[in-house]
């Protein structure tokens, strides 16, 4: 498998299945680890960075759990390809900058990815469709344990796993769940969710769109506390809150269908009409419309498309994906045109 296979394959986390996939888009669990004998990436010179990269690559080559993975050296790929990997959530924006001595391992189906020499020497993640916290943890825990048998991690008995940023110290664990919460957003209840969540050692932010503003009603809830609680406790706490949030969203959806049916239908079908008919469309508008159509699908109002097509659009609408599928660089305006074309092709709105 090489980089080009990746381009042609689908990301598993966009399959649109898995537990609670009507509301939960995906679950991501990541661990941050560093090698004891080298300075952290940001403080290391090029020689040290190189040693870390080569050491980790050689250890990964010998690991059974990591066969069938692709190794990408970030400096060897084009800027669009880097952006493409960021859009697929396989690596961070930060990893696409200062690219010397940076590596990325991607597993089959893109469920597993490991950034080498990001802020920490190792950032490994499992990304899955639907609500799958404990399964994702099991996989990443097993990989971490097996790597820990051959690598000496930076670790102290008092502080746990030592990371470049103190916000990750301890477990090095960050679990995030991406949720689609249109009913809570529409009814202004999302503010209450924000309030409640910040009191529970968790954080919530918008997932797509610029800055922290949530566009398209997609929200990401993750743990903020990484030290002083065990991994299982951190994940349980997150799962509990997610389950409550889902119940609240469901309840509000029922309320909308019960009391505001006409208005809800109107919004959904107008959005569907625009999405199918647009000839020029920005990514911001696309996300907003996709959110409404997804809700229509969940509520049984729309039945002639499937969730996989919507997820495909959600990924293919991004700049690097549009440019790769058109095999050329596109200006912002050209992208808006190609985006509209791609959407009509996917959900059959004619030429």
């Amino acid at each position: 498998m090489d980089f080009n296979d990746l381009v042609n394959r689908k990301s598993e986390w966009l399959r649109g299945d898995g537990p609670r996939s009507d509301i939960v888009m995906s679950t991501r669990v990541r661990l941050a680890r560093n090698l004891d004998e080298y300075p952290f990436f940001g403080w290391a010179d090029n020689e040290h960075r190189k040693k870390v990269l080569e050491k980790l690559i050689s250890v990964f080559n010998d690991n059974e759990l990591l066969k069938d993975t692709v190794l990408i050296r970030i400096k060897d790929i084009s800027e669009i390809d880097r952006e493409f990997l960021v859009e697929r959530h396989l690596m961070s924006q930060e990893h696409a900058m200062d690219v010397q001595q940076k590596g990325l391992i991607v597993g089959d189906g893109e469920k597993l990815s490991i950034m080498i020499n990001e802020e920490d020497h190792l950032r490994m993640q499992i990304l899955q469709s639907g609500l799958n916290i404990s399964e994702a943890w099991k996989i990443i825990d097993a990989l971490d344990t097996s790597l820990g048998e051959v690598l000496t991690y930076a670790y102290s008995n008092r502080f746990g796993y030592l990371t470049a940023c103190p916000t990750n110290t301890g477990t090095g664990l960050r679990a995030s769940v991406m949720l689609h919460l249109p009913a809570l957003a529409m009814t202004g209840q999302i503010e209450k969710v924000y309030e409640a969540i910040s009191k529970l050692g968790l954080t919530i932010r918008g997932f797509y769109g610029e800055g922290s503003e949530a566009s398209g009603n997609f929200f990401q809830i993750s743990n903020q506390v990484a030290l002083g609680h065990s991994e299982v406790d951190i994940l349980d706490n997150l799962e509990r809150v997610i389950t409550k949030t889902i119940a609240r969203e469901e309840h509000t959806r029922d309320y909308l269908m019960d009391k505001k049916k006409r208005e809800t239908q109107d919004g959904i079908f107008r959005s569907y009409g625009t999405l199918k008919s647009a000839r020029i469309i920005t990514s911001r508008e696309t996300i907003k419309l996709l959110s409404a159509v997804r809700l229509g699908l969940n509520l049984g109002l729309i039945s002639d498309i499937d969730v996989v097509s919507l997820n495909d659009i959600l990924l293919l609408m991004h700049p690097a994906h549009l440019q790769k599928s058109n095999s050329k660089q596109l200006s912002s305006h050209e992208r808006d045109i190609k985006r509209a074309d791609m959407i009509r092709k996917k959900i059959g709105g004619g030429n």
Partner: protein
Amino acid sequence: MKKCDVCGIREAAVHLTEVVNDKVTKLHLCEQCAKEKSEEMQSHFGLTDLISGLMDFGPQQMAEEELPRGSVTTCGSCGMTYSEFQKYGKLGCGKCYEAFEDQLSVLLRNIHGSDRHVGKMAFKGACAMPEQEKMKALREELETFIRAEEFEKAAVVRDRIKELEEKVDRQEKNGF
């Protein structure tokens, strides 16, 4: 759930968030400390000042100014100073956590509400540290017994040291 950032004892009831140049600063205070701080706050420009004001009571300031010469403000392993860390926001290496232990435990308590790891343990690190400490304690014990001429007790301790040494040897050979 979160403890007060000032007293570290009572539960935080007042949560302040300030955004300056896209940087978000958060402060969690219990009612009592919030009351005490409110007068101070009025004389400050903002939360950032309040926080650096709070830091005056913490070990940072002491480490920079009041501690006797030769005390650690620089990480012996990577050369990062604590003020460099404050500027840069990220630590230089794992050993920084030892070098800046006092300052960092305050900071970690502010971030996580705790400064003690209770989760998964790294195989190598987790084993090596307590065993070395144990060994050190046992050697001291051994010396005390020998000095007191309590040879029977000393023999027991000697055997325990031997046992521990063999265990560490085994672990090293197995690559743990």
